[in-house]
C-alpha cells in the first residue's frame, strides 16, 4: 500500500477513536442536561425543606436529604480513621517486601471489586443478625432492638464498601509528600510518629480530603447495600437514634421510579429527587477530580 493510503486509513480510524471518546462525553452531558432541565422545573424551597405528602406527589424530600446526609456522615466517621491508618501502614510503616502488606493490598483490591449487593448481604448477615443479635442478647433486650435494620448498620456497611477508595487516595497523597521532609524531621530528632502527625499527614491533607470526598460521593449514591440494612421508603420522622430507619435519596428514586402507579405523573418530583442526588454525589466527585488533577500536575512538575 502506498504511504498516502495508509495514512488516510489511519486518519479515518483515528477519527473513529475520537468519535468513541466524544460519544462517551456526549452521553455524560445528555444525562446531566436531561436531569438538570427536568429536575430544575420541580425544584423549590418547599421541595427541599418539607416532608412528602399526598402519596409522594406533594411536599418535598427533606427527610431523604437528611437521611442521606446523616448516613454519609456516620459512614465517613467510621471509614476515615481506618482507611487513613491502613494507608499510613502500607506507605510509612510496612517493612519493604512485607508479606502482610502485600496481603493487605490484595484484600483491598478485591474488596473494591465485591459487588455492592453482596455488601448488602454482608451488612444483613454480619452487622444486623450477628453483631446486632449478640448485642441484644448481651444487653438483655426482650424484643429486637439492634438486630434490625437501622442507620448505624447501613453506615457501617457503606464504610466497608468505601474503605478501598479512602485507602487508595490516601496512599497516593502520602506518596506525594517528598521523602526529604520526612528525613529532615527525623534528623531533627522527631520520632516516627511525631513526623507522621506533624509533617507527613499535614502535607498529605489535601489528598486525604480528596479521598474523603470521593468516599462520600460513592457512599451517598449506593443503594444496593442499604436496601435491607436500613433504608425505608416513607418515614415522616427524621432518624433520631442510631437504630432508626431512614429515608434515602437513591432508595427514594428507585422506589418511585419502579413502583409508582403512574410514572409520568410522578416524573416531576422524581426528576427533582435525582437532581438533588446528582448534585450531592456528582458535584462532590467533580470537586475531588479537580483537586486531584491539580495536585497531580503539581507533583509532576515538582519532580
Amino acid at each position, binding site marked *: 500500500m502506498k504511504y498516502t493510503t495508509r*495514512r488516510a486509513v489511519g486518519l479515518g480510524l483515528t477519527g*473513529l477513536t*475520537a468519535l468513541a*471518546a466524544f*460519544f462517551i462525553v456526549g452521553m455524560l452531558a445528555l444525562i446531566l442536561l436531561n436531569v438538570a432541565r427536568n429536575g430544575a422545573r420541580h425544584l423549590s424551597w418547599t421541595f427541599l425543606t418539607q416532608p412528602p405528602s399526598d402519596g409522594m406527589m406533594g411536599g418535598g424530600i427533606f427527610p431523604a436529604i437528611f437521611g442521606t446526609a446523616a448516613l454519609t456522615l456516620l459512614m465517613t466517621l467510621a471509614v476515615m480513621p481506618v482507611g487513613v491508618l491502613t494507608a499510613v501502614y502500607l506507605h510509612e510503616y510496612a517493612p519493604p517486601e512485607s508479606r502482610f502488606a502485600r496481603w493487605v493490598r490484595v484484600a483491598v483490591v478485591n474488596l473494591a471489586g465485591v459487588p455492592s449487593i453482596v455488601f448488602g*448481604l454482608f451488612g444483613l448477615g454480619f452487622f444486623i443478625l450477628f453483631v446486632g443479635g449478640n448485642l441484644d442478647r448481651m444487653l438483655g433486650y426482650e424484643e429486637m432492638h439492634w438486630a434490625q435494620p437501622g442507620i448505624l448498620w447501613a453506615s457501617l456497611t457503606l464504610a466497608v464498601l468505601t474503605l478501598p477508595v479512602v485507602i487508595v487516595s490516601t496512599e497516593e497523597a502520602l506518596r506525594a509528600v517528598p521523602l526529604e521532609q520526612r528525613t529532615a524531621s527525623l534528623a531533627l530528632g522527631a520520632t516516627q*510518629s511525631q513526623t507522621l502527625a506533624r509533617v507527613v499527614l499535614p502535607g498529605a491533607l489535601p489528598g486525604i480530603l480528596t479521598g474523603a470526598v470521593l468516599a462520600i460521593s460513592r457512599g451517598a449514591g449506593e443503594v*444496593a447495600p442499604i436496601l435491607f440494612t436500613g433504608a425505608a421508603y416513607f418515614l415522616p420522622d427524621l432518624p433520631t437514634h442510631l437504630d432508626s430507619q431512614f429515608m434515602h435519596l437513591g432508595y427514594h428514586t428507585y422506589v418511585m421510579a419502579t413502583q409508582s402507579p403512574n410514572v409520568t405523573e410522578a416524573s416531576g418530583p422524581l426528576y427533582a429527587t*435525582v437532581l438533588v442526588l446528582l448534585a450531592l454525589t456528582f458535584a462532590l466527585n467533580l470537586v475531588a477530580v479537580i483537586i486531584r488533577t491539580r495536585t497531580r500536575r503539581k507533583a509532576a512538575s515538582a519532580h
Partner: protein
Amino acid sequence: MEQGLTRVVAAPRLSAAARRRQLREKAVAGFISLMAFTGIAALILIIVFVAKEALTLFTDADARHEASLAKMFLPQEGRYPFRWQPVSDTPKVSMIPLFVGTLKITLVSMLVAVPMGIFSALFVAEFAPRRLRELLKPIIELLAGIPSVVLGFFALMVLSPVVKDLFHLDRPLNGTLAGLALALAIVPVIFTVSEDALTAVPRSYREASLALGATLWETAWKVVLPAAAPGILAACVLGFGRAIGETMIVLMASGNADIVSWNLGDSARSLSATIAAEMGEVVVGSPHYSLLFFIGVELFIFTFVLNMVASTWTKKVLQRLTGSAS
C-alpha cells in the same frame, strides 16, 4: 577527659523519658498495623458471613429437599424445565434463568463498552493533543461518579422508549436496555485501566515504530496496543466483573422475568437483581433466604476470581514494560 570519652563510647543508657517515648512509638506502630488488618478482616468476614447464611441449604433437611443442587442447576420435569419461582406452593428454584439473564445482559454491555472503552482510551493516550487529553480523561472518569441508581433511572425514563423503537422490541424493559445502560457504568472502568496500560508503554516503542516509517495509527494499533495487551485484557475482565455484580441498573431496566431465552429483546432477570428484589420480603432462615445468600456467594466468587486474574495481568504488563514489580 578520659572518663568523658568512655562514657560516650559505652552503650547509651536511655533516660526514663526516652524509654517511654520508645514504648509509645512501638504502641503507635502496633496500633497502625492492627488497623491495616481491617481490610483483610473485612474481606474474610464478608465471605464467612454470606456463606454462613447460605450454608443452611446444605445442612437443613427441609432446605435440602426444597432447594437441592440438582433442583438449582438441572432441568426439572414439567412444562417449564427451568423456573425461578421460590415463593409459590411448590417452589421452583432453578438458577439457570438467572445465569442466562446475567450473561445476556453482561454480553450486551461488554459488546458496547469494550470497543468504546478501548477506542476512547486509544484516542486519549495516543492521538489527542496534550490539552485535550488532560480535559478528556477526568471527564470520562466522571461518568463513574454517577450513582448506578441514576443510570437505571435514566435508562427507564429516557433510553427505554428510544431502544424500544430503535430495535422494534415488544417490551419497554428488556435485556438490551439493561445491557446498554450497564455499558454506561462499565465504560469508565475499561477506559481508565486501558488508558493506564497504554500510557505505561515506553516512548521508545513509539519512536522506533515511527522511525521505521509506520503511521501514527499503525504505531498505536500494531505496536502500542499489543504491548499493553495484558493491561487491556485486565480492563475488560474488571469491566466484566463490575457488570456481573451491578445491581440497581439491571434491577430497574431489565424487566426481571425468569425466562430462559437468548433473545436480546426479551426481559431478563439477573443474579444480583434477584437478591435485591426478593431479600426484602423473605423470611429469615427460610430456604428462600438461604438461596439468596447462596447467589451472593456465587457473585462473590465470580468477581473475586475475575479480580485476581485482572490484577495478575496488570502486574504482568507493568513488569514487562518497566522491568520492575511495582
